[in-house]
């Protein structure tokens, strides 16, 4: 059974693009079965082509009752990664979110969480930057330290901007 990997568009930034890609791949008989490319992509396993729609929900304390409710509504769990749960259903199934409130709650929780992460990552980066300015270390060590501490900034600020922007759009439309 062969697998295919594809790059993600970023679930926090463009979830709709990834969800459309999952549906398109399922139609070609390639079914989402996990993450790939060090968390920057998705892996798909070959199977029978199927028409399906995909959606995602965020829940950190997902109980068996949570998944029972989704299953009863026609949404089958495909994969869970931490508090992110990706589901599929036959086209025409009622959406996962039928009011703005549950979607807004998810986005607000994610925005607040990534705001905390971003502040911590930025403070750490600024402290390292200050240390590099004050101390006179080896040039390569200074550059390496700055690069290592820049990664968490990118990986927390980009999702933060994504969740915040989606939340603002939702608040404007409802």
């Amino acid at each position, binding site marked *: 059974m062969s697998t295919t990997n594809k790059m993600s568009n970023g679930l926090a930034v463009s979830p709709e693009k990834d969800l459309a890609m999952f549906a398109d791949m399922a139609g070609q008989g390639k079914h989402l079965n996990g993450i790939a490319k060090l968390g920057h992509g998705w892996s798909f396993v070959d199977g029978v082509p199927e028409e399906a729609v995909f959606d995602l*929900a965020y829940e950190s304390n997902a*109980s*068996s*009752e*949570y998944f029972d*409710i989704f299953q009863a509504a026609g949404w089958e769990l495909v994969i869970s990664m931490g508090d992110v749960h990706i589901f599929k259903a036959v086209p025409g199934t009622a959406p996962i*979110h039928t*009011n703005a*409130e549950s979607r*807004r709650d998810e986005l607000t929780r994610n925005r607040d969480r990534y705001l905390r992460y971003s502040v911590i990552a930025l403070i750490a980066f600024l402290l390292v930057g200050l240390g590099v300015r004050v101390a006179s270390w080896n040039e390569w060590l200074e550059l390496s330290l700055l690069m290592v501490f820049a990664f968490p900034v990118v990986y927390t600020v980009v999702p933060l901007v994504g969740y915040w922007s989606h939340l603002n759009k939702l608040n404007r439309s409802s």
Partner: protein
Amino acid sequence: MGRNSGYQSGDLVDTALHVLLALVHPRHGYAVMHFLEQESEGAITLGPASLYTTLKKLAVAGLIKELEGDESRRTYHLTAKGHEVLVRNIERRRQLLVMADHIMEEA
């Protein structure tokens, strides 16, 4: 005031009112969706994420309670406070309909 303050003040949005109505009799969470869809003849559709969020908020506000039972198939029922809030919300909407009828008759 936050957007969720209605659960504490008792001034409920439609989704919360629908779920409270379904829990006049004890029901499993997932049964709430099917009950509302059947009773409304398809007019009310509740997505699973929206239902789960609403159940959690109603429980935190003390308007519904979990009955003893299987962890995976929790049964919920209206509390006395939930019943009071439900009656008040129905009455508020009834008054709104009377007002709407009156305005439309005069138009």
